[in-house]
């Protein structure tokens, strides 16, 4: 068992445990911080897949910016522990449960298809600089410049929308 396997199980197991923490803890702050921890483990997995920029962006954007706002709001409102309600299944939940199970099976079979070696779909050879800043920056500003700019415009619309919605209150 190489060092890579050990780290994979460390990061993967940590990600699963902390994601379970998000779902199972009753205190909203605990959930939020578990989510941050799981982002760190995911970043570790990205780094192992030599997607260094993705790993850093994961921490910078999700853990460092988005979740900070979540935690900020949760602390400001200061919820107590969530009331324990008796779980009742309604039709929407049953449908989402079925869809979730189907997705899980699909993902699992896809993953095993890669592992057993009979289907060589994945070529592990990578160009030099793969996943680095230069490669991704180059791809974003040449081949994918339209989606990139569209995302930027979408974010701008979101910001303007937030300002408009907030202004109306005063």
């Amino acid at each position: 068992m190489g060092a890579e396997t050990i780290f994979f199980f460390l990061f993967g197991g940590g990600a699963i445990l902390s994601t379970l923490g998000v779902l199972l803890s009753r205190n909203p702050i605990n959930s939020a911080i578990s989510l941050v921890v799981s982002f760190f483990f995911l970043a570790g997995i990205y780094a192992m897949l030599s997607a260094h920029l993705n790993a850093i962006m994961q921490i910078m954007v999700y853990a460092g910016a988005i979740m900070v706002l979540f935690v900020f709001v949760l602390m400001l409102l200061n919820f107590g522990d969530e009331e324990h309600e008796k779980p009742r299944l309604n039709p929407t939940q049953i449908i989402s449960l079925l869809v979730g199970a189907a997705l899980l099976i699909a993902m699992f079979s896809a993953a095993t298809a890669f592992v057993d070696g009979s289907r060589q779909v994945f070529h592990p050879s990578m160009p030099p600089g793969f996943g680095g800043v230069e490669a991704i920056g180059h791809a974003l500003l040449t081949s994918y410049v339209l989606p990139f700019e569209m995302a930027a415009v979408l974010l701008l619309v979101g910001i303007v929308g937030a300002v408009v919605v907030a202004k109306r209150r005063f």
Partner: protein
Amino acid sequence: MDLVWELLIILLKIVVVVLLFAFPIGSLMTLLGDRKQSSLIQNRIGPNRARLPGINHPLVGIPHFLADGLKMIFKEDIIPRQANRFWHTLAPAISLFPAIALWAVIPFSDHYCTGTATMVDYRDVCVDGAFYNLFSISNLEAGLLYVFAISAVSVYGAAIAGWASNSKFSLLGGLRSSAQMISYEVTMGLSLAGILIIYGTLNLNEMVVVQGQLLWDWLPMWGIVVQPLAFFLFLAAMMAETKRAPFDVPEGESEIVAGYFTEFSSMKFAVIQLSEYVATVFVGSLVSTVFLGGWQVPWLYGDGFYFGNTDEPSIPLPYWLVIVLRVGSFSIKTLFILWLQFMLRWTLPRFRYDQIMTLGWKILLPLSLANLVITAFVVLVLL
């Protein structure tokens, strides 16, 4: 065997950088910077009572540094009854983690050259050998982004400490600190975008190497020379990030006792303080890396001082002396920025909360945007 050797070197680098550089300077600053320098500025005598056994001299108050540490260890560790025990205990560690992790990408000198180091076009080249990374813990390609990512995460320490104490003052301190840090992160990133355009790299060591280039064959191309405005913007933003005066509303003692660490005592308090000081030292090292040429000594390259782009050095020096000079130059620059921060801390009064927000969003942010646009334009015209 090679792997074990490499792991040992990395461990050694971590120990030297964190335990022998960041921590001692950071904790000595609590004394020399905060207590002795403030007393000099405020025309007081300052700490002078503690003595080392056998030496009947105050030694500019340095024994107080040991006495304070001892006092902290023996104090009672109090967790308020209504506090969240888990997060209250973990909060000091959460605030110390980013302060340490940030040091991973700071280069203390150029990569070690196994052959003969010399200079071609104001750049070190290694003849008959290769460069080997000995003077930074990790030579990350996206080093600067790593710094941004980790300092973005450092918001949590104060916020969780404030929230977990279950006290109104602490909560206010935590909320103030997260609002302030989020606001200044934007300026922090944008003010460096101009530097990135000029140097064309995110790797901090490569950035320092590029700063060895000379403008008009005599002026080192340090960040402060090519981006003077960004230097001040970045220094202001980084000072706000460390929550030190004049940006210390999160712990404003005249309003909210001690802010987010009101309910912490004993070593937990010490760890929170230490992480702030280590972060302050880090600001010094990052500013000197990006703007003051890092380990560069002007006109000094691999085998001596060069005055002009010649083949032979004007003043030849042995390679070990070059390394010593470089590490020394980096340390002196770091200490200088540190000293500057403490001077600012004791000169300027604390800003009000609205002043901090106005400064961040209405002054620093537009200035850094303007700086970016002008830099991009100038680079486009010149190149």
